[in-house]
């Protein structure tokens, strides 16, 4: 079975610089942080918040493509967010769910307890029934690449379930420290301010500045 790391490595090779990535916590952010030093990366988004946060970014910046790198356990915590995505219908949003069927977290030696997708739940079916028309399931690097590239080239929202190995024993070497959430916030916000011409951070100097 394909690994999370293989798919992230492929994504890092094909993703255009201007595409915004919103990554969920644990190994997805940890691995992506080793592969990428892009300023358009927003990392460490916690359980239940990755797809909602990506939706907020996509709605705020309709001219930018946004990819959520979500997980099955993470998404299942706020599964209703798929209905919100469908009804808001942002054409610039692609949701990738790395579905390993268990609550792995950052465990290294054995899978965690099963998620609902480790049982009977089919996230592609949930997404379609929630109103997201463009939804698919992939299980190889080639299919992943083809569907991500198609998603970035066509109006969405898109939903891609990537079935991955239960255990992340294929992982990148730690060659750098991944930014913590606050460092990452400032880097990301400065990038958006610079590229979009918006003022996000206040000076804190008040109305007399």
């Amino acid at each position, binding site marked *: 079975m394909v690994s999370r790391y293989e798919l992230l490595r492929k994504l890092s090779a094909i993703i255009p610089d201007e595409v915004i990535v919103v990554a969920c916590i644990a190994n997805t952010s940890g691995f992506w942080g080793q592969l990428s030093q892009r300023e358009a990366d*927003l990392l460490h988004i916690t359980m239940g918040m990755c797809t909602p946060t990506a939706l907020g970014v996509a709605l705020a910046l309709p001219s930018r493509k946004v990819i959520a790198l979500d997980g099955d356990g993470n998404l299942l915590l706020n599964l209703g967010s798929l209905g919100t995505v469908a009804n808001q219908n942002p054409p610039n949003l692609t949701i990738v769910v790395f579905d390993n069927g268990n609550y792995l977290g950052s465990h290294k030696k054995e899978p965690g307890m099963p998620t609902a997708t480790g049982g009977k739940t089919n996230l592609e079916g949930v997404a379609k029934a929630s109103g997201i028309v463009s939804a698919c399931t992939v299980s190889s690097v080639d299919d992943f690449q083809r569907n991500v590239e198609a998603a970035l080239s066509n109006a969405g929202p898109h939903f891609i379930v990537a079935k991955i190995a239960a255990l992340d024993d294929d992982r990148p070497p730690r060659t750098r420290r991944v930014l913590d959430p606050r460092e990452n916030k400032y880097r990301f916000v400065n990038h958006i301010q610079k590229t979009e011409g918006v003022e996000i951070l206040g000076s*804190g100097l008040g109305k007399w500045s």
Partner: protein
Amino acid sequence: MKPAKAKLVIDGMKEAGINFSVGVPDAQFIEVYRMVSRDRDIHYVGAANEGEAAGIAMGAWFGGKRPALIIATSGLLVATYHLARINLLHEVPIVVLVPFRGDLGDPRWMGMYQKTTEPALRAMDIPYRVVNQSADIVRTIKECSESARAWLRTVAVLFTGEALW
């Protein structure tokens, strides 16, 4: 809730520069939800869950919007994990607008929220103001928004029944 009181909440959001809102509707603030969902200056997203709503609001801030989260006192409890992460870990400014059920004088069985609302905000280190008079609604939303932006903190405004009805 009288439309004129709801309009004060919308006016306060506009005075504060808020241009993005997310909520999970409740009966006490229904006129606010109706007005904001029709407003051309404030994008409104109706979410299924207050934690999800908090995430959407955070994302909108990262995209350059000034977001408000409009939720009930019950919803504040639902959103605590997400708001705690947003306020304590990411340090992102969101203005949270809450009709304060359970304030003394509330005639319904909402007393539990008197026990939970302010302690929950304090536990999440979210500064807040309680608005008791409708004349203070606009100014308070504006002031809380300004502080949220300067401090990079989530800030809440609680509106009592006295201010809203």
